[in-house]
Structure formats: C-alpha cells, structure tokens
C-alpha cells in the first residue's frame, strides 16, 4: 500500500513539476509563465518529501513559492503594461537555440546513462532532517554558513544600489 502511494505521488508530483516547467519556459503569455512556475516549485517540493528531505521541502515552499515567485511577479508587474504581454514573451532565433540546447541535453542524458550509480540497497528509512542539518551547519559547514551571510549582505547592498535610482 505504502509503495503504491509512493509511486503514485511520485508520478503526480513529477507531472506537476514538468508540466509547470514546460509552460513557464515555452508559454507565449508572460503571466502564464510566472504562475506555471508555482506548479513547478510545488511539484519539486513534493519530490523533496519523497526523497526524505522534509526540511528542504518546507524551505522550497517558503523560499521559492513564497519569496522568489513573489519577486518575479513584481518583476512582471513592474516592467510590463499588460497590453504588451502577449507579444513581449516571444522567441528569439528558435532553431539555433533548440539545436544547442538539444545537444547539451543529449550530452547530459548520455552521461547519466553511462555512469554506474551506486545505489544503497535497501535505501535508508525516512527520518526528520532538521536537527541533522543544524548539526552540519555548526560543524562541517560552519564557514560556508557564515560566508553565506556575506553573500546576502552583498545582495542587499547591490540590489539597493540598483533600485535606488528608480525610486528617486
């Protein structure tokens, strides 16, 4: 029963994620692009739960669906009169881009198929991860942890500098 539940939820979330990604990358209407991204983020969050990453799933919803998506929607609202929306979201030189991306994608597929992935058998059981991640932050990953605060500081300074001209 649990196995069936697992497989069914996997395919549902994978379909959500891929359908949302396809719409947001290829739709001609910019508003559809942004809102389809919500579908992708929620589908990927579901896949994170299935991969025993409960904290990451919560962060995915909190940060991507709650933060980055809102910022992108603001970006759309700030830069477009809606009259332009249907025409503004069109494609550039599509043949060239499609060929290049197809080649890159094929390389990826070939290498994924070539590498003999080591799989634990049986896979470890599901367990809450927040505590273990916290221990990693205070242990092995202490320097990246402190360093990321500098990254965020620079983001505040840089984006404020860029946005200030617009405000004044």
């Amino acid at each position: 029963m649990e196995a069936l539940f697992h497989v069914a939820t996997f395919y549902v979330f994978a379909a959500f994620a891929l359908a949302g990604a396809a719409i947001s990358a290829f739709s001609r209407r910019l508003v559809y692009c942004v809102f389809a991204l919500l579908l992708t983020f929620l589908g990927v969050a579901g896949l994170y739960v299935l991969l025993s990453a409960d904290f990451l799933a919560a962060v995915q919803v909190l940060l991507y669906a709650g933060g980055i998506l809102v910022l992108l929607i603001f970006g759309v609202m700030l830069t477009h009169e809606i009259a332009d929306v249907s025409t503004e979201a069109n494609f550039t030189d599509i043949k060239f881009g499609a060929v290049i991306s197809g080649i890159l994608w094929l390389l990826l597929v070939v290498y994924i198929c070539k590498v003999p992935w080591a799989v634990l058998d049986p896979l470890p059981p599901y367990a809450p991860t927040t505590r273990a991640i916290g221990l990693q932050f205070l242990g092995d990953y202490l320097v990246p942890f402190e360093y990321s605060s500098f990254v965020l500081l620079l983001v505040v300074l840089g984006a404020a500098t860029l946005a200030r001209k617009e405000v004044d």
Partner: protein
Amino acid sequence: MLFDYLSVVVLLVLGLANIFGMMVLPKLLRPHNPTAQKLVAYECGENPIGTSWLQYNVRFFVVALVFIIFDMEIVFMFPWAVVFKEVYATSGPLPLIEMAFFIAVLAVGLIYLWVEGLLDWIRTIR
C-alpha cells in the same frame, strides 16, 4: 513514515476541490440570462477606463527584496535553533557567537537600507 504526509495531501486535494467546486457548482445551478447592463464591471457606477493591470510602484520591489533576504536568514536560523540547546550543553556559547556574527553581518545591510531611506514609504527629498 511517508503516510505522515497523507494529511498534507488530503489538505491539498480538499483545497483544490473547494476552489473548483466553488467555480463549477454555481455554473450548474444558476440561471444564465446575460444582458448588456449586467455585463458592465460596476453595474451602478462609473465605467472603468483602460485595463485593470497597472504598473506597480517600485517601492513594493524593495520591500519584496528585503523580504527574500530575511526569508533566507530564517532558513539558516531554523536548523540552528533546533540544535542550539544540545550544542550549547556540550560546547558552550560558541553557537551563540556564530549566530550573532551571522545576524550582525545581515544587520549591516538592514542599517544601510534604513539610513539610505529605502525603507521609508513616503520619501523625504534629500
């Protein structure tokens, strides 16, 4: 273990069913008899001019930007808060100092925004 998340799935399905039920059910029940008067946006008010899509004020963007930064800060603080007690018991106040440093660095950004007046909703001319 995975069944613990069943409640989330049930909530999701119920929420979606609620939305689409609310949209489909009235369509089946209500009489359909539109007239030109009924189809205007405000039946006894002004006729709207232009579209309902406006350009947002750029101030919203700065607020959203600050929100996303502090969202990320919470993501880092939450696992730290979960393990703080046990790490404090074994290794003393070191985790406190580390998090204080983390927050102090981000506070510099907040102070910068504050001093530059980017957080003010009504701007003073400088």
